[in-house]
């Protein structure tokens, strides 16, 4: 099976390197068996493998070289996410890697950055993002959490903190006299209570209460416009990365399905020779192709800081979410009964797609934002 991205684009040198490296990593440290094992662990992933991710340098992929990273762009990040997505790697590379690392690496508080970043890149400290107050939220600058007094005290109730359980601390958004701020709160801080929610695929998100939690002045990463810009940029990258995972899930589920259609024999024929099934499979391939193109477009306009970056990003999240959920659940139907068993792998893709589709804004939320942000040029393709 060929994919449209192979037909349309030639991967760059770095992209090829990342792909090969990531495939090697997955082979050395991961298996489908692990996916099932991790479903019942407290945090949903393994700190040991996290250390290996750090050791291989994957946590610093997007970090500038002068800060000890590899200085790669989002195209390379997308490649890594594709490999990890296809393999269903349970380690939260986006939620606790790319995203918090981008915030710490991009903040202008040099002392705090120098204190946290090396430990994050070495895998010794795992941070998660506590930004969301309620479902359906999309703007990280919007929160009712507060930072008051001197010394600072944090009052916040954060919801759906992805991989928030088992973290060594959180990056928390709050308003200080109405101005958005981003602070670091270590897990050991007094007044923090964490409730774990298990997601369908075995991943974990957390509701976290920060009740009169003292925050040291040196733990403030950013404030005001700088904080808003930092948060939005990092969230955009996390969202693009999630789209890459969604596309990988869809493409892999389709490949598994096409492979099965080519082997399974009924009525004396391989069922993949039946036109009804062929056309259904092609329709899914068309969806995958469109989602791939939309994501590459969004990555391009993000890198160019184009005026369309926001609408392209939302279009990507909406379409990639829909595509991954459609393709994975259609894969159950195309497999027949075997697809409905937990033993067969396709179900793992179904559940993982649901997790990523519901994270960082659902299709419906992003469709709304796409309409609100897209330039009104119905007559032009450009």
């Amino acid at each position: 099976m060929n994919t449209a991205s192979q037909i349309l684009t030639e991967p760059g040198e770095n992209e090829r390197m990342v792909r090969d490296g990531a495939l090697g990593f997955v082979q050395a440290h991961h298996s489908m068996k692990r996916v099932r094992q991790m479903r019942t662990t407290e945090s949903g992933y393994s700190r040991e493998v996290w250390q290996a991710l750090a050791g291989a340098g994957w946590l610093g992929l997007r970090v500038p070289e002068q800060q000890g990273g590899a200085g790669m762009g989002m195209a390379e990040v997308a490649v890594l996410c594709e490999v990890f997505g296809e393999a269903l790697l349970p380690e939260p590379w986006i939620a606790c890697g790319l995203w918090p690392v981008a915030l710490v690496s991009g903040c202008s508080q040099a002392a705090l950055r120098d204190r946290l970043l090396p430990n994050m890149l070495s895998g010794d400290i795992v941070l998660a993002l506590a930004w969301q107050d309620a479902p359906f939220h999309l703007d990280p600058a919007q929160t009712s959490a507060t930072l008051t007094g001197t010394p600072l005290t944090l009052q916040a109730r954060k919801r759906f903190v992805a991989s928030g359980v088992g973290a060594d601390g959180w990056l928390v958004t709050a308003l200080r006299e109405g101005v958005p701020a981003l602070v670091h709160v270590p897990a050991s801080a007094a007044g923090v209570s964490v409730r774990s929610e298990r997601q369908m695929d075995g991943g974990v998100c957390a509701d976290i209460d920060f009740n009169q939690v003292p925050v040291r002045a040196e733990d403030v990463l950013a404030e005001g416009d700088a904080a808003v810009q930092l948060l939005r940029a990092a969230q955009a990258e996390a969202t693009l990365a999630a789209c890459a995972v969604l596309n990988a899930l869809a493409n892999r589920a389709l490949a598994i399905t096409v492979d099965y259609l080519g082997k399974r024999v009924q009525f004396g024929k391989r069922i993949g020779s039946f036109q009804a099934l062929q056309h259904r499979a092609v329709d899914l391939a068309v969806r995958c192709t469109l989602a791939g193109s939309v994501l590459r477009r969004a990555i391009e306009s993000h890198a160019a800081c184009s005026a369309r970056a926001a609408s392209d990003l939302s279009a990507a999240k909406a379409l990639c979410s829909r595509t991954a959920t459609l393709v994975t659940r259609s894969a159950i139907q195309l497999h027949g009964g075997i697809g409905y068993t937990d033993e067969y792998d396709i179900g793992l893709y179904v559940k993982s797609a649901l997790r990523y589709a519901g994270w960082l804004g659902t299709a419906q939320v992003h469709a709304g934002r796409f309409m609100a942000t897209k330039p009104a040029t119905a007559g032009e393709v450009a």
Partner: protein
Amino acid sequence: MNNANPHEDFNALSDDEFRRRFRNWLEQHCPEDVRRPAHRLRGQRAREWFRLLYEHGWRAPAWPREHGGMGLSIPKLILYDEELDHARISRTVDMGDTHLGPTLIKLGTEEQRRLYLPKILNCEHWWCQGYSEPNSGSDLASLKTRADLEGEHFVINGQKIWSSFAADATHVFLLVRTSTEAVKQKGITFILAEMDTPGITVKPIVNLAGDDDFCEVFYDNVRVPAKNVVGRVGDGWTVSRSLLGMERLFIGSPRNSQIAMMALEAVGKALGISEEPAFKSTWTELSLELHAVQCLYRETAQALGQGRQPDSVLSMLKIAATEHFQRTTEAMLELSGEYGPIGRVKLGTEEIDMRQLYMLARPATIYGGSSEIQRNILSKRMLGLPDD
């Protein structure tokens, strides 16, 4: 001053400059009756419009400059197309420009090029295509119209159908069977004929949009010089496929969808339903899908420009673009309530012809390889599914 200089290399212009030049020219020169995007310009009027483009150096954008075209790169071609849309120019079927010219440039003899290319450019000749037959639609290679060599001439007998605008054409390029011996694709020949050759009878067919665009064309002992064969005798199948890259790109263009979306937006305004939840949710879905088709279109065009052969993706693009076009026109009729069956609504002085768009969208999934044929091909070529 916005005329194109025939010796000019447009690809050297910046995108903005090229866009500006063509936009200005269109604003100054494009007649009012050509600015009706949902309508097809045809006949004498179409020829006059293309003649005007020719006289000002804006004709045959895709042809190489040494053959009298503009020699535009693929990115510039897309800009050219976008500006036509921006100016709301009616789309016209111009088979000489899009099909025959490029075929002759690629595979014609020196004499054929010298004879035909200039007359395509100045619109003295107006070409139609003779491919499909009553019993050879999706299975085109089974065509039976035969051509028998008698001395220096081929004698053509048979019937073609769906020859768009044959009634307006001065010439036809057609596929005929010159041998029944080999595999069906092998015995086909690509040949050129003048429409006023004795024995050719054209009978227009009224379509569901109420137009008589396409025709049946009957060939009864039509004598055509053997030198009118393009490529070798028996190679017609390959000749007819030779330009499918760009042509298929434009078949997958989102422009019809964009026109339908503009019409849907206008219908929403005309009926005061733009803010209704049903309208908004449909509008949102269609806008997202249009965005996706546009992204894939651009990427595919770039790939073609880099010399890639994205055949499978072109098939996908055609499926996605034409099906979006259809869905948009369907939504338009459904959302307009009792105006649906009437088929038109008025917005100010402008009448939106919903019926026309709805009907125009029907054959989009049939011609150029039906959606189902595209899916058959994709299931094998791209997914590698078995035949058994």
